[in-house]
Structure formats: C-alpha cells, structure tokens
C-alpha cells in the first residue's frame, strides 16, 4: 500500500518507478502482482484521437478606445462572444463562415475551429474580426487585426467530453458509401473504423474510476492540466465484462489546460469528409499504484477489451441500440477481422502510435520529477445512466 504523498516524494527525489500501460503487462507477468505493486509507483496511460468537444476560451485584451466585441471571427471561423468583454469561446467543430458544409455532398470541410486551435498552438498568426454595437463605456464598433497566442492574455482549452472510456466500431451495411465521424465507410461492410487506444487508454486502465477523478492532474497535449468535472455523457452504468471494463462508451472526462504550454504535434485540426471538422488531441493520465488492485486494473490487455460493432447506415442514426457483434482491440489492431462471417478491413480514427509516444513522454516527465500526481478532490460517479432526448408532442 502506498499513498499519493509517498509516490510524489519518490517522484521529487527522482526515484519513482514508472512504466507505461503497455510495458506493465509483461512486467507483472514476470514479477507477479504483489512484488510489482511494491516496486512500481506509476503507470502511464494515454490516448490520441478526434475529440469533438474540444474548445477554448480566449482573452484578446482591450483596444483603445475600448470595444466589447459581441461577434467575433478568427480566420473566418465564428467564435462565441456572448460572454464577458473581449473574451470568446471557440469550438473545435465550428465551420468557417460560408463553408458549403454538405451542400455538395460529401463536403470537404477544409477548415474550422479545430484548425484555428492547431494554428494558435503552433504559434501562427491569425486574423481577428470583431463587431460590436457600441456602448458609452465600449464605444468601438469594429476591429480587424492579426494576433498570435503570445498576444493573448489567456488561451485556456476547455473540453467537456474527452477520453471516452470505450467506443463504437462503425460499419456500413448499406449499398452506398457513408461518411461519418469515424471516417468513410464503404458499402457492404467492406471496412470498419474504431477509435480507442485499447490497453493504453486512460479509463480502460481504471474502469471504475478508482484513481482518476475530478482534480486529477493530466497531460493535455504537453501542458499540465486537470480533470475539472465528469465529462458530458458520462454514463458508467453500462454493460461491463468480468474485469469491470465497459463493452460500450461509458465514462468520459472534462479536461482543461493552458494552451500556451501545449505542443503543436498533439493538437491537430481534422477534416472529416462528408461529416465536418474536429480537433485531434493527445492526452496522458498517470495512474498511481496505490495497491495491487489498482495495479491489476492497469494490466488489462487488448484481447480483454471488447468494443461493440454498430451499423452506422441504420442502427446508429436511428438509435435502435442493436449491436452486430463485439470485437476485441487485439482483433481490431490486426487490420482484418471477421464480422458476421465476412472479412472486414479495419482502420482507426485514434492513433495507437501517438498514444504510445505520449505514454512514454509522460513516463519520462514523471521520472525526471517534472510531473507530480494530484489526488482527486472528488470521485467520478460510478452509477449514472445515459438519457436520450424525449421529443414531446404536446408542447405546452
């Protein structure tokens, strides 16, 4: 048994034993659970993938004369300004003004909020266009200027739904290609698309949220941020395997961190043909090895994590709840799987290679004493169902 304080003392003295969630599997096999739990202090988990709920609050500072800014566009992408003067919120899935979207189906969605966020973190110059109605204290009505992230007072990423615990595997049973947030799906179930780092993914290594909670310090694209709330659509009451690992979506995390400290290679705007724009992000979360039970959770393997195969041509859009099959991440990562007796090529929207890289970077930062663990202020809910939207006909 170890405490957060003991683990942090070892990190500060440069003596912490840190392994990634991939490395720990063989390590525990070799050493046994009890001995490994005594030796290992931290296991690092990570994921990299499209996280559509990403966004940020920006503060531009005040001009002379002052302007409140009630409407704003950054590189042509609308940023919500119904907040305090010269603050704006930019969402990853916002399209550039005038984007034809899916008018010419499938649309290209070349540029949007996610790309603006990528440019900001990369230190590139962006154009701000702001309008206002003018008041006695904020008389200016229009501004047009360029800025970089260094000119901003704050650039704080605020992502209410990151790190989905598990995710759907999408196929298309129809006779035409379809375009989804998991990419293009060819007709007749020729290909499938999944999105999870599997055995490296944070919440699959802590399935009942025993160490990851509100207040946990996280590595968000290179910056040290934290979990600020349960994520939107956090729905831990779900089907779980014998190892307590969910076999469907389940938990999510709300994350925040300072964009000025982020690394551009882990903040990438994404264009999904026929669907829209998004932002792909890298996240790393350390798991403190407080006891053998916590360690056991982190030894979960790809073959023991199942994801539901859903038909995105019919069952997903109509929300029928039908699951065609369940596949393990070991099968998915082979690149070719059998679904309902048919050979299907597998691709992913998340990057296992990047997740591995992030788990390694975070492990190095902890070994060097640069990243300390934070004890959660509050646990995430373990019981909570997912509600659908009721459409009431009798609008009173």
């Amino acid at each position, binding site marked *: 048994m170890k405490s957060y304080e003991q683990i942090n003392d070892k990190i500060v003295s440069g003596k912490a034993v840190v392994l990634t969630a991939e490395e720990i599997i063989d390590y525990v096999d070799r050493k046994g659970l009890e001995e490994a739990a005594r030796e290992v202090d931290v296991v690092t988990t990570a994921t990299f993938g499209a996280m559509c709920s990403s966004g940020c609050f920006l503060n531009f500072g005040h001009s002379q004369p002052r302007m409140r800014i009630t409407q704003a566009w950054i590189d042509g992408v609308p940023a919500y300004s119904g907040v305090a003067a010269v603050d704006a919120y930019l969402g990853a899935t916002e399209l550039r003004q005038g984007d034809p979207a899916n008018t010419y189906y499938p649309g290209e969605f070349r540029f949007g909020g996610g790309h603006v966020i990528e440019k900001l973190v990369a230190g590139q110059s962006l154009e701000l266009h702001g309008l206002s109605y003018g008041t006695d204290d904020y008389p200016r009505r229009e501004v047009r200027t360029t800025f970089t992230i260094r000119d901003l007072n704050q650039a704080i990423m605020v992502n209410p739904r990151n790190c989905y615990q598990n995710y759907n595997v999408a196929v298309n049973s129809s006779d035409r290609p379809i375009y989804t947030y998991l*990419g293009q799906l060819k007709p007749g179930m020729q290909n499938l698309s999944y999105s999870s780092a599997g055995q490296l993914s944070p919440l699959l290594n802590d399935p009942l949220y025993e160490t990851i909670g509100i207040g946990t310090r996280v590595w968000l694209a290179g910056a040290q941020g934290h979990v600020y709330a349960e994520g939107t659509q956090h729905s831990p009451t779900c089907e779980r395997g014998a190892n307590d690992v969910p076999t469907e979506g389940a938990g999510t995390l709300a994350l925040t961190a300072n964009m000025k400290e982020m690394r551009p290679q882990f903040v990438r705007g994404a264009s999904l043909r026929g669907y829209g724009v998004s932002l*792909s992000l890298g996240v790393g979360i350390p798991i403190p090895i407080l006891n053998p039970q916590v360690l056991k959770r982190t030894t979960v393997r790809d073959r023991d994590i199942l994801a539901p195969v859903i038909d995105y041509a019919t069952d997903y859009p109509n929300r029928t709840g039908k699951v065609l099959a369940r596949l393990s991440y070991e099968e998915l990562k*082979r690149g070719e799987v059998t679904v309902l007796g048919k050979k299907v090529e*597998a691709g*992913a929207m*998340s*990057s296992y*290679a*990047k997740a*591995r890289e992030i788990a390694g970077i975070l492990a190095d930062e902890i070994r060097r004493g640069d990243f300390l663990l934070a004890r959660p202020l509050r646990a995430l809910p373990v019981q909570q169902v997912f509600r659908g939207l009721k459409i009431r006909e009798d609008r009173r």
Partner: protein
Amino acid sequence: MSTKRLLLYFPKSETEKPIVYHLVKDYDLVINIFRAKVTPEEFGYLVLDVTGSEENIARGMDFVRTFHVQVDEAQKGVRWDLGKCTMCTNCIPHCPTKALHVADRATMEVAFASQLCVECLSCLENCPYGACSSIF
C-alpha cells in the same frame, strides 16, 4: 544514349528560371514534357523524358538541383508527409494497393511504399490531417 522519366518539383521561388532551355542548350539533352504545372508565385512541377548520355543526364540534374529543384525518379505525384501523419490508420482500408500500410502491428506505425501507389487519390479524400497530397 538513354532515356529517363523524371519528376522535377519546383519550390515557390524557382519557377521563373528557364531551366529546360539550359538542359537542352548546355547539356545536350532531348526533352519531352508529359505533364507540367508552372504558375508564378506557386510551386510547380514538370514530368519529362530526358534523353542523352548518362553523364549529361547526371550533370543536367546536378545543375537543376542547384536551384533547389527536387528531382524524383519515382515520378509519383502522391506525397505522404510523415510530419503531418498522426498514424491513425484511417487511410489503410481505403488504399487499394497497400502502398499505405501498418509497418509494425505492435507499434501501429504507418508507412508509405510509394512504388506501390497507383495515385487513385483515396488517401487524399480520407486523411483528416492532409498528410497525403498530390502535386498533379
């Protein structure tokens, strides 16, 4: 005498120099242009057959490279930018010849075997990050 098909990729600033003129005049090469795009202030390319002695072709290409022009014998218009690729593997089921492939299933790292590419451009349509591009 021999004939080689070459792709000359011109960076933004070098497109206004009479490079083909010098290849003919100074290096005694016969030039047959198949495809070209030369737009002022933009990148440009030339796909051409070059006929001449091995030595003159080599000297001619050395001359071309002094203008920071890339000379590519593979003549493939599709380029895969490792720096932009996130290795998500979304492109893999869409590449019909497995030119884009997972090089190592343990690390899930993606690689591009340009000799297998048939330039169907599926990767351009499916890469969320613009890692694949075509100069044609």
